């Protein structure tokens, strides 16, 4: 069993645990590389099926290429897609720095979808290597009534025994990609030939390493215009993956505040 096989087996195990434990669950599809890999893994876990709805909070500000990708693959992958618009910026905490406030629309939108569909759990494709606060996460991460994350008092999690017993009103985030790295994701995309949005591939010396809203996501310098070249680039790079995501960098604690409030 090689490294990618082991990662895949672990993610499949996590997805199956979640599906066994939650009657009402959904999987987030941000249209980025990680959530594509996650949907692919769900189809591995459930033998070609995705037996729960796929959720998308539309900020209305994604790249056109992303909307086109969604349109094509929701049918091709047989996905039950549920789309809801995120609330307007005016309804979001004005004390957050501008980009973080913009990103927080997604948190609020997600909370509303969860409430509307009475979801016990949502599956999110975050990874520990992306960002320091995400490194602190559990695979099954309980949230309070208001989706907030108490990173100071997380449940123990070991021997693949996840927290599956909850007080009523608790909501769970399930993180099947937590143990993957950015390089793992691309190696797996290469091996499995998983389609991704073209924006990841370099044009005119620039490419996107991480995709979000048009106005708060910026490309990085790169000539990597194929999956193979991206992999070669990642083996060498020392630039952080989310360096092109504005809301991470506005203040030392901006991303932490977002996540404590329920951001992915």
């Amino acid at each position, binding site marked *: 069993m090689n490294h990618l096989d082991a990662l895949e*087996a672990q993610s499949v195990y996590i997805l199956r645990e979640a599906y066994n434990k939650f009657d009402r669950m959904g999987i987030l599809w941000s249209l980025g590389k990680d959530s594509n890999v996650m949907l692919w893994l769900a189809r591995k876990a459930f033998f070609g*099926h995705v037996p729960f709805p796929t959720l998308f909070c539309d900020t209305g500000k994604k790249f056109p290429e992303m909307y086109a990708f969604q349109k094509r693959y929701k049918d091709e992958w047989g996905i039950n897609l549920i789309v809801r618009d995120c609330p307007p910026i005016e309804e979001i905490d004005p004390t957050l720095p501008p980009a973080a406030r913009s990103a927080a629309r997604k948190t609020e939108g997600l909370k509303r979808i969860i409430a509307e569909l009475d979801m016990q759990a949502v599956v999110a494709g975050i990874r520990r290597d992306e960002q320091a606060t995400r490194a*602190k996460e559990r695979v099954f991460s309980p949230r309070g009534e208001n989706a907030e994350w108490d*990173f100071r008092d997380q449940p*123990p999690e070991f*021997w693949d025994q996840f927290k599956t*017993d909850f007080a009523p009103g608790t909501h769970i985030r399930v993180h099947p990609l937590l143990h993957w790295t950015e390089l793992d994701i691309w190696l797996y995309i290469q091996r499995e030939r998983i389609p991704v949005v073209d924006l990841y591939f370099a044009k005119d010396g620039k490419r996107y390493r991480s995709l979000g809203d048009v106005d708060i996501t910026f490309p990085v310098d790169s000539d990597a215009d194929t999956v193979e070249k991206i992999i070669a680039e990642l*083996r060498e790079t020392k630039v952080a993956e989310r360096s092109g995501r504005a809301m991470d960098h506005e203040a030392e604690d901006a991303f932490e505040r977002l996540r404590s409030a329920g951001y992915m």
Partner: protein
Amino acid sequence: MTATPITDLAPMKLVIVGHVDHGKSTLIGRMLHDTGSLPEGKAEAVKAMSDRRGMPMEWAFVLDALQAERDQGITIDTTQIFFKTPVRPYVIIDAPGHKEFLKNMVSGAASADAAILVVDAKEGVQEQTRRHGYILHLLGLDQVVVAVNKMDLVDHDQARFEQVAGEVRDYLAGMGITPSAILPVSARHGDGLASKSANMPWFDGPTMIEALDAQDQKPLPVELPLRFPIQDVYKFDERRILAGRIESGKLNVGDTLLFSPSNATAQVQSIEAWSVDGPVLSASAGQSIGITLNDQLFVERGFVASHQVDPPIQTNVFSARIFWLGRAPLEVGRRYKLKLSTLEHPVEVQAIERVIDVADLSERPADRIERNEVGEVVLRARAQLSLDEFTANPRLGRFVLIDGYDMAGGGLISMDGFHDLRRSNTPTSQNITAVETRVTTDARWAANGHRSGVLWLTGLSGAGKSTLALELEQALFRKGWQVYVLDGDNIRFGLSADLGFAPKDREENIRRVGEVAALFARAGVLVITAFISPYRSDRDRARAVAPDLFHEVHVNAGLEICEERDPKGLYKKARRGEIPEFTGISAPYEAPENPEVEVDTGTQTLSQSVEQLLRYVEANFGGKGS
């Protein structure tokens, strides 16, 4: 074929443990820097953070990404950090040093391949050095590199290093751990991490990185017997797929699988997979798979598939070494939900054998295990669980306990002193199929947690049979036993209401008691009968009804003593000739020749006699060995 780049290999998982403030986070921050693994700008960011707080370069800030952490100066939670050496990539799990955060340390250390135990050169071995060392041992983590840190604070003194190294070595040796290396380092200055220290020329051992690169990655348990716990059963389409992860061993299409606890068997018809090239014909430990069977057996989550050779143990009682994380202490009689692989089942704490003091490894008896303590307990379930001893197969030899909604502890299974009940359960007939659901006496024993039988008390009137029977019944009932007393009071008024006291009637009465006692025993109950039953032939007939379950107990007090006690005044009446054929006076008592137990109620106190019978019952009917 080109070699796989280092970056693409599975990282070795490292856990860093040790007493608070002994420099774990600093060691990590500095190792990341010295191996060139820090993202661009991170060193500068750490410098800026340190400057802002008026501190010298604080490498611990590399990890302390959260605002709350920096303010407290304590690493709160398990963090995962990646770095690589020329040999392989690593992922570091930074375990916290603060005492109450054991759960985070366990969360990190449970999945690690190797550990670095950090000890302050000045302070030496402290409470959490011991505690963390012990937890490593409990989790089966035996690859340990010890970093004697802050050597700069003891002037790089070799003698002090040797002293601390000796202390650590002695403590670890007490648990059977031999550290792979004990290294003098000064993490803040990078001394002894990626390069040899100019300040400690007297040390000719490896650097930290060299010592880590020399560790072995834990292999998957492919060579152990097959354990395939069922995680779920899917019917998304025409296929009925049993999904799960192979925890150990391997399976092939065509293999006959034995499912525990039903003991039904079927063959693997296919190994299902989506988006792979060609059919899958075999699978092994670590793989999450799905299979179909050639026979539609009843199988559900929590069942364990194995081969027919080397199946898991089946038992409803076992002992375990427990580390307790719960807010409420673990106590005898409390019930918890056990989660073992995909199996979930309620268990009750039958006994706490001892609590282990991790500071000096001493043991003491206790009636509770408090948060952050380690102890040995006996757990009992209402049904048979499929499991392994931890030393034989860690994957099915470990479990967690849930108290309410919370994971309150973890444990490692030992069957020392307990039977594998499988032998008595496995049907020997090849014709028995899954649809046959006869409830066997064995199954009842398993559910009750003890074996059943007949304790046939015989003895003179006044010897104390009834009193002893009722006391024993009460004591066993309190321990959760299925137990019932048959005596003159509940037999004569109903079942034998038609009988008098003529010799023929007495004989018939005893015959009925023998039959009823055997039925109770077959139903899983431990029956205690209390009848004079003076004739050997009557008792032998009662034995013949259920010879495998019959235990004769001679409740023996001499005639003089019984006559002197004469609680019901019967001896006096008999002496006066008012009761014909009174045993011992006007009719014989044929004492047992080879009773299973002889209780001398003439000289023993009642409690001594009850105690004697309790020990006999525990030894012969209990879950523990006979």
